[in-house]
């Protein structure tokens, strides 16, 4: 449904996109994961016809984004950063306005607005001006506006950035409902957890290109999954601690004399933790913990690989 090949966009001497490739199959959710400035929004702007690429080509719902912009716009909904609502008008007035601009006609626009308000739980507040809405309500209205034509492809640009956890799970639920109806979704996010929760496949973007692609599990296991960390009191014990941990984990340990820190990848986090606690009794330790890889680690690992 979405297919991009070698997209390039240059601002001055900085390439916002530099050979960006993406393939999203019909009925799936693709999470485009990356830090600020990686090119996520630029990619979405090009795929939604807001921005013309300097190179490469892209198709959305079978239409070329530069040559068949009108058809692309009829097949997509854009939600998030780049598409705003009218703050002064009520939620209902916003949906009616956009419905008319989707050429539904006044009466159908009104009916559709009511349907969407009910569906996104905004029925009670539909008459209030958008500027009085909470962040979560606003995003749900935003989703509703993107769904007026029930488009086959939805672009969600950082749909939960800046939301509190409760609003975030509201938006997640709304997105899951849309996906259950068969929409194809491209979702950009800075949060690994969000991509984890919503996406079938994740593309990690850095410096304008996709540096890794796969399911969340594939990406995490790519950097070794959970790690067991130990901090010893005396640097002299580092060697012994590393040997103990390697025996338990069956993998190579990394250690750093400056921080007196030993770290080893593990499969079964609980077993590793209890075994290590027992085996390290003879050594004075300051800290012992199992932790999941953070987005930073996944990301740093992937970008380091990309540089090599």
């Amino acid at each position, binding site marked *: 449904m979405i297919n991009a090949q070698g997209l390039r966009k240059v601002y001055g001497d900085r390439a916002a996109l530099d050979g960006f490739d993406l393939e999203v199959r019909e009925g799936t959710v693709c999470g485009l994961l990356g830090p600020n400035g990686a090119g996520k929004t630029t990619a979405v702007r090009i795929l939604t016809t807001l921005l013309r690429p300097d190179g490469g080509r892209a198709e959305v719902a079978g239409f070329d984004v530069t040559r068949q912009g009108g058809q692309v716009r009829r097949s997509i909904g854009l939600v998030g950063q780049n598409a705003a609502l009218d703050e002064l008008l009520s939620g209902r007035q916003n949906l009616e306005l956009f419905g008319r601009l989707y*050429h539904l006609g006044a009466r159908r626009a009104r009916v559709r607005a009511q349907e969407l308000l009910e569906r996104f739980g905004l029925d009670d507040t539909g008459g209030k001006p958008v500027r009085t809405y909470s962040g979560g309500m606003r995003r749900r209205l935003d989703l509703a506006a993107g769904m007026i034509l029930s488009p086959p492809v939805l672009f969600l640009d950082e749909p939960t950035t800046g939301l509190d956890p409760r609003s975030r799970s509201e938006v997640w639920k709304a997105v899951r409902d849309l996906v259950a109806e068969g929409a194809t979704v491209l979702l950009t996010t800075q949060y690994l957890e969000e991509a984890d929760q919503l996406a079938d496949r994740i593309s990690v973007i850095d410096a304008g290109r996709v540096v890794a692609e796969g399911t969340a599990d594939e990406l995490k296991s790519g950097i070794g999954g959970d790690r067991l960390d130990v901090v010893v009191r005396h640097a002299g014990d580092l060697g012994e601690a590393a040997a103990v941990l390697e025996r338990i984990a069956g993998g190579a340990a990394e250690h750093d004399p400056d921080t007196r820190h030993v770290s080893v990848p593990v499969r079964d986090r609980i077993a590793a933790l209890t075994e290590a606690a027992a085996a390290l009794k003879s050594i004075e330790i300051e800290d012992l913990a199992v932790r999941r890889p953070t987005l930073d680690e996944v990301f740093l690992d992937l970008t380091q690989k990309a540089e090599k």
Partner: protein
Amino acid sequence: MITDARWALADGWTVARRDLLHWVVQPASAIFGLIFPVMITLVFGYLFGGAVAVPEGANYFDFLMPGMYGMTMLFGLSATMVAVTTDASKGVTDRFRSMPMSPSAVLLGRSIADLLHSALLLVLMLGTGLAVGWRPVNGPGQAMAAVGLLLLLRLALLWAGIYLGLLVRDPGAVVAVQTLEFPIGFLSNAFVAPGSMPGWLGAIAEWNPLSSTVAATRELFGNPSWGGESWVAQHPVLMALVWPLALLAIFFPLSVRAYRQLERR
């Protein structure tokens, strides 16, 4: 082609309707916007009126009102600019651009809404004028022509405002234009005679497009005027057509181009 034009108009009207809805849902700011030029008129008429020289034997309001009508059109420049930059910076323009609506409708809607707003303002100002003793004496035909010239100037400034609004992204620049509106208005024949200014400044004031429109409306309403020896002061009605049409010929294509260029940044 015909369906394209029809959708452009229909969508343009829908976009304009959004602005009209703003007046309904936020009447306070709409009312203040309407009161502002009325207030300025009263300040000039009653506070400064006694101290300002007017053409021989004239009632001050008969002289002042056409200048105020012209000023009211001039104030529209920054109003349009504010609306355009706000929509662009808030992302409303991008929302429209991502939808399968007519691409011309965004700017068309802006010009319909702003022209309607200015027409309403002008009606209110004409009413204010009549209330304080201003009278058009050349009959309804010429009075309508004067109103037409004022709205033509507004239309030209509207597209200048759209262009400037698309060009700048910084709300600070809008403040700069707002600040310049009064000096531009004073540097015309709206309040004082260009003949009384230092030579070069007087020449700039006479060639100010606002001066042509104000002089033309004074002539058409039959209100007292400064006259003047220069060619431009002798042909106010002609210049009140030429100036706005020239501005339109410049700023309409520039605005359309700037709007298309949005997909490059």
